[in-house]
């Protein structure tokens, strides 16, 4: 019970630490977290917001050998982590073929995330993971606790073996975290000395900087536990329900059921993930029966799928969002966003309703914030957002001295009002055809806009780092249950001493002191309501006062599924998608 009480005290100290370290925590991890931004969701009930999250699993810590089922009294995170079907040793059968997006794995030593992220083939497991309801639940760690000031102690599951027969022990955790430490510590902020092996099944992780978000961050598949002395760039040895058969880069990834899996046996005998970057081709492959399931069905043509025999559209909960960020610190020629009138005009010049209901055929929801309402609560009502008003947009520009020039493009002091929109996070296809629609609408109010599509996250971020662009289209979302998480992560003023690679977002978008003050409030808030209020105030600065963020829509994941696929539950976070409970009815 002592541990339990420690855990109860956490929220107070947590905010304190966040206040102290949030800058680095947020900024250093921006690249990575943003990368997972589109995966996670804010569906968590508000009550489990910032306060509860660090303690979620800690409450089970009183009993070192607690099974997941024993944690039911505190959080919904208590369900058996895999295969809800519970068929146990039932003979696996059925082969599933999945059309995935492009092969986005990295293959450099230590940074390699083959099989983990962005396509999670369920070869690997993490210590804890997120449920589709965004609760943290135990996997390789049976329980955990927070030890002040900055240590997380995990009690590991016993009797688990890696696919090569190696037993899973604390050593594997140390090895896996060591890989992360070797390349800068990632969002966790671990270094070589962070992981202490207490005994074979107990590890203590002390990040090199204060980080109370460890328990949520460590659920990210990039923090998967790999077998000691193995490197995923070379060989993939995990503990998951599936084992690698073959990985052919940019072609396919084949996995088979792990017969010795510690949890409920997977229903499928084999899954083939095929990398098909083009969304049209993906859907066609589903239609022709070549694949059984496709990810990321284009929003604008998803409707077609429902009219095809034997196919259906499966959607996840809303969690992700679509928004434009305006570069307000850019250097010429990307400096026009510095002028508030320009940002305001852009905000009023875009018809969100037409984008959501017309262009995307209703496969999204209109939103005035980036934070899903479910997590922000009524507090979000203070954000008014902008509604489409081209006359007002024109007037704003007129008043600011931008007058009609040649070819309908406005000019001021001989400079044309030309903006560049960068589209590519997490890929360009997911946004289409929104950019072109916005382009046409802005042309209507006298702003010429170029569209630059980047094929993947890496090149998008490379561009963001150098600030080459005015408007940045992002499809991202909440990473955990904390309403402030995202604004904190992306828009808090960067620490000039921080890791330069990770300051990209702050360098381009941070609106400054007024906003930072709300985030500071957020970090210091005690109750859920306070956190929500602070988050809403921060969001209001971004959306209503500064027009740094122009939210367009709240979005959900779209999967195309053949009728023979059963038991597929779309996780709002794609990288947390689980396959063990899916089965294929060949009949």
């Amino acid at each position, binding site marked *: 019970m002592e541990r339990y009480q420690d855990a109860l005290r956490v929220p107070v100290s947590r905010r304190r630490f966040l206040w102290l370290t949030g800058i680095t925590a947020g900024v250093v991890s921006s690249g990575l977290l943003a990368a997972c931004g589109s995966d996670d969701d804010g569906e968590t009930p508000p009550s489990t917001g910032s306060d509860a999250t660090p303690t979620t699993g800690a409450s089970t810590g009183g009993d070192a050998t607690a099974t997941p089922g024993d944690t039911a009294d505190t959080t919904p995170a208590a369900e058996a982590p895999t295969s809800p079907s519970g068929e146990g040793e039932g003979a696996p059968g059925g082969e599933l073929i999945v059309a995935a997006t492009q092969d986005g794995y990295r293959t450099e030593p230590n940074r390699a995330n083959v099989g983990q992220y962005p396509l999670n083939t369920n070869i690997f497991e993490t210590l804890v993971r997120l449920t589709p309801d965004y609760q943290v639940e135990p996997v390789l760690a049976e329980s955990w606790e927070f030890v002040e000031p900055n240590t997380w102690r995990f009690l590991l599951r016993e009797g688990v073996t890696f696919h090569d027969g190696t037993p899973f022990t604390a050593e594997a955790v140390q090895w896996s975290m060591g890989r992360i430490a070797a390349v800068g510590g990632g969002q966790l902020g671990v270094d070589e000395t962070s992981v202490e092996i207490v005994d074979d099944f107990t590890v203590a992780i002390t990040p090199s900087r204060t980080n109370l978000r460890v328990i949520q961050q460590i659920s990210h598949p990039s923090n998967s536990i790999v077998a000691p002395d193995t490197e995923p760039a070379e060989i993939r040895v995990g503990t998951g329900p599936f084992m690698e058969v073959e990985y052919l880069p940019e072609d396919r990834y084949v996995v088979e059921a792990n017969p010795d899996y510690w949890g409920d046996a997977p229903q499928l005998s084999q899954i083939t993930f095929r990398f098909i970057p083009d969304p049209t081709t993906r859907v066609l492959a589903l239609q*022709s029966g070549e694949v059984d399931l496709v990810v990321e069905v284009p929003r604008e043509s998803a409707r077609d799928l429902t009219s095809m025999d034997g196919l259906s559209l499966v959607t996840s909960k809303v969690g992700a969002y679509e928004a434009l960020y305006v570069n307000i610190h850019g250097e010429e020629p990307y400096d026009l966003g510095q002028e508030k009138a320009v940002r305001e005009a852009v905000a009023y010049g875009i018809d969100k309703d037409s984008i959501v209901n017309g262009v995307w055929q209703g496969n999204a929801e209109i939103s005035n914030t980036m934070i899903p309402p479910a997590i922000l609560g009524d507090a979000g009502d203070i954000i008014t957002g902008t509604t489409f008003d081209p006359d007002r947009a024109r007037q704003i520009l007129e008043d600011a001295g931008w007058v009609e020039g040649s070819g309908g493009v406005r000019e001021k002091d001989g400079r044309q009002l030309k903006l560049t929109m960068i589209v590519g996070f997490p890929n360009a296809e997911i946004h289409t055809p929104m950019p072109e629609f916005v382009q046409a609408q802005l042309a209507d109010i006298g702003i010429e806009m170029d569209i630059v599509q980047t094929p993947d996250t890496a090149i998008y971020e490379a561009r963001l780092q150098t600030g080459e662009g005015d408007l940045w289209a992002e499809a991202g979302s909440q990473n955990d249950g904390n309403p402030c998480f995202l604004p904190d992560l992306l828009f808090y003023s960067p620490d000039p001493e921080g890791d330069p690679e990770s300051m990209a977002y702050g360098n381009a978008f941070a609106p400054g002191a007024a906003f930072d003050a709300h985030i500071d409030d957020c970090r210091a808030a005690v109750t859920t309501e306070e956190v929500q209020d602070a988050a809403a105030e921060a969001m209001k600065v971004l959306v209503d006062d500064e027009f740094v963020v122009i939210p367009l829509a709240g979005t959900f994941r779209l999967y195309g599924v053949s009728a023979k696929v059963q038991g597929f539950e779309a996780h709002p976070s794609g990288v947390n998608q689980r396959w063990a409970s899916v089965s294929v009815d060949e009949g």
Partner: protein
Amino acid sequence: MTRYLIRRLVYLIPIWLGISFVAFSLANLTPGDPARLMLQRDLGRQPTAEEVSSVRDTMHLDDPFILRYVRWLENAVTGDLGTSYRTGEPVLSGLAQRFPSTLQIAGLGLALAIVIALPLGIMAALWRNSAIDHLSRVLALLGASMPSYWVAYLLILLFAVKLNMLPVAGKGGWQHLILPSVTLGLGACASLMRLTRSEMLEVLGQDYIRTSRAKGLASWAVVVRHGLRNALIPVTTVVGMRFAGLLGGAVIVETIFAWPGIGKFVLDSIFDRDYPVIQGFVVFMGTIFLLVNLVVDMSYAWLDPRIRLSR
């Protein structure tokens, strides 16, 4: 024959140097300072003037162009074409790894084109203005006029979606090869057909053929023994050129059919501004093209002894 081969090989050296020079010069087309670009990628911010100039020093960017070229060439000759910005892998291995896939569809595409074009072309020449001649003309016209990327979707719609006979995309069994190969081979088929026809017509009009015919040799024997061999000489050249063209043109087909070949790799690199890969692609494909030409020359010489003797 061996002496001819050696002579051709020696001739290829200056051409290859030219190719490498073009590839190297291309990198100088990139907007912006390469040192700055590299620093931006590595540092994630605008580098300072000092940083830029120090990197320019270590990269020897301020050396004369020729000196830099020679330095680059030394590496290129040993197979070091630099490292991909995007994947971090050596450019040459990245290209070489994906090349066999491209070779597959280009090879099959060309084979299909030849199998269809040669008989049709010959028949069209033998029976001028017959139905088959007109048919071949129409086919050739369509083949040369329809955009391959449009045809690809029509083929997918028909054979993969409606008839469900062939897979839509990706790499797998032999079935996966068919649609990409057909799409790729279409243009080549059209031009080969036209060429075969016109070359056959010319050969058939030659005196020796007329003489043979007059002597009463069976017309098929004449066509095969004399006509075909002579008509094939120019066709061989074009087949070789076409093959290289198919390798280069695979980028569109590979994109549509999600075929993991060299063209798709380069297209991604273009969008990624992965300049070393683009540069390596030029050297790689140029080299392949030279080798293809060499093979063509050799078969040319084999078909026509006059060539290897005269030069």
